[in-house]
């Protein structure tokens, strides 16, 4: 029946949404693009379009009022099916673009640093992090090393890859002059402990911060700015007390 495929696509979107909500891993944020579904729905739409043209001609030439009524009815049903398919396709794509937007805000470096010239090799997961060969993004902060999770750009359609890169650039431009000091990509949870006490778990040499040089010798303790040492905590050199 017309619209069945669309319905399956929507169920797929719903499933993806549930996955997003229950899983925090980056890989599960965007499930593979349902290219086959979309292509088949578009085929159905094409078929419906042909029907519409045909029925339209029939209606114009019809003289018998009873027949006319019937043909109009057919025409409407045909149209509703097209409308239905359109709404479902839009809902599916919009849901994904919303998710891409969120990803751009949360994981901007991952998006910006990857996907250059990596299209085509379908089954090869492309790592989007740690590629510092991107000119758009000189102001890299240390989150690059923390987020060493992979994000498979081949889960996105070609159009989506274009979209996500453009949107990412838009966000970067927002972070320019006016809000340069604010870091709009930063945390939306209020700062609680700007400074923390840490204990050194293994020797890490000297680190330079705004508050001077710290020599990180095992078992020593320091009072430092959390953002300065976040990386070292992640890497297991320091432990928050």
């Amino acid at each position, binding site marked *: 029946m017309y619209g069945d495929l669309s319905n399956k696509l929507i169920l797929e979107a719903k499933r993806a949404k549930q996955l997003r909500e229950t899983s925090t891993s980056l890989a599960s944020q965007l499930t593979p693009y349902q290219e086959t579904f979309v292509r088949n729905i578009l085929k159905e739409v094409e078929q419906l379009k042909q029907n519409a043209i045909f029925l339209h001609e029939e209606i114009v030439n019809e003289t018998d009022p009873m027949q006319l009524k019937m043909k109009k009815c057919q025409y409407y049903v045909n149209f509703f099916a097209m409308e239905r398919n359109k709404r479902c396709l839009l809902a599916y794509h919009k849901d994904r673009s919303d998710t891409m*937007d969120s990803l751009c805000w949360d994981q901007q470096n991952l998006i910006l640093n990857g996907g250059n010239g990596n299209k085509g090799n379908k089954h090869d997961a492309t790592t989007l992090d740690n590629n510092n060969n991107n000119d758009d993004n000189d102001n890299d902060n240390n989150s690059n090393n923390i987020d060493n999770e992979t994000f498979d750009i081949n889960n996105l359609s070609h159009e989506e890859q274009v979209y996500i890169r453009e949107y990412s650039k838009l966000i970067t431009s927002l972070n320019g002059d006016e809000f340069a000091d604010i870091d709009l990509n930063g945390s939306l949870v209020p700062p609680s402990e700007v400074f923390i006490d840490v204990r050194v778990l293994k020797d890490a040499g000297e680190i330079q911060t705004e508050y001077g040089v710290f020599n990180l010798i095992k078992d020593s303790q320091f009072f430092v700015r959390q953002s300065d040492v976040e990386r070292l905590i992640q890497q297991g050199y320091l432990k928050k007390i």
Partner: protein
Amino acid sequence: MSFPESLQNTFLPQEIQFIVENEPIKILPRITTRQRKQYRQGSNYDPDSKNSHPIKPWRLITTNDYNVNNMIAMKSTELPLWMAVLLKEQKKCNIIAPNWITVSNLDKYIDFELKNPMKFSSLPWNWLVIACILFTKAPDDLTDPIHLLKSRCQDLREIRLAKVQNGLAILNESHLQLDNLSLMEINEIRPYATKISDMFKNLHKNTAAGLGEDYDMHMDTSEPGASFNMTQNP
């Protein structure tokens, strides 16, 4: 989306705490920041003050910085809560707990709550957050034993929550007055309180539209508005 769904139309508990932390609280500093060169004129915010001497050691942009630049050890002063907590963590001050955090005062509030099923006692709008912060960050600054205070607060919380739940029974399509409900409590009931009211409103709209003129919408004699009010202190 630029803003996660979990943050839309609600605040995180941390955000409620953040809002409360902007409020002033009395402290007893253990350090002296007042210098011979004084900044007595109040919070002179001068963006170029780095060019004029002497340097003002504390310059703040969210609050009057006179107090913090004029702390004298063991002489009470008032600072925003977040700063008081920061100094407390550095063992540079004691926090003077507000009057209402004593066993006897909390008992009075509990008493009032129990005697007035349709009213909330006039606890400060931030009582719950203040209590939590003091319990965790400054337990030694509380006069009464902490376990007694904690259990009183827990009682208060439960009594008030039960009242809120009863209050939901009188939610309607018009409005509801909930004086003295604290911000944290509001935030906790927000998701369902607003949703239920919205549903009532829509139901009301639909029945009004669907049933036409001959149906008396106000067959029900009860007042459409409801009040969950409080007029007196305990």
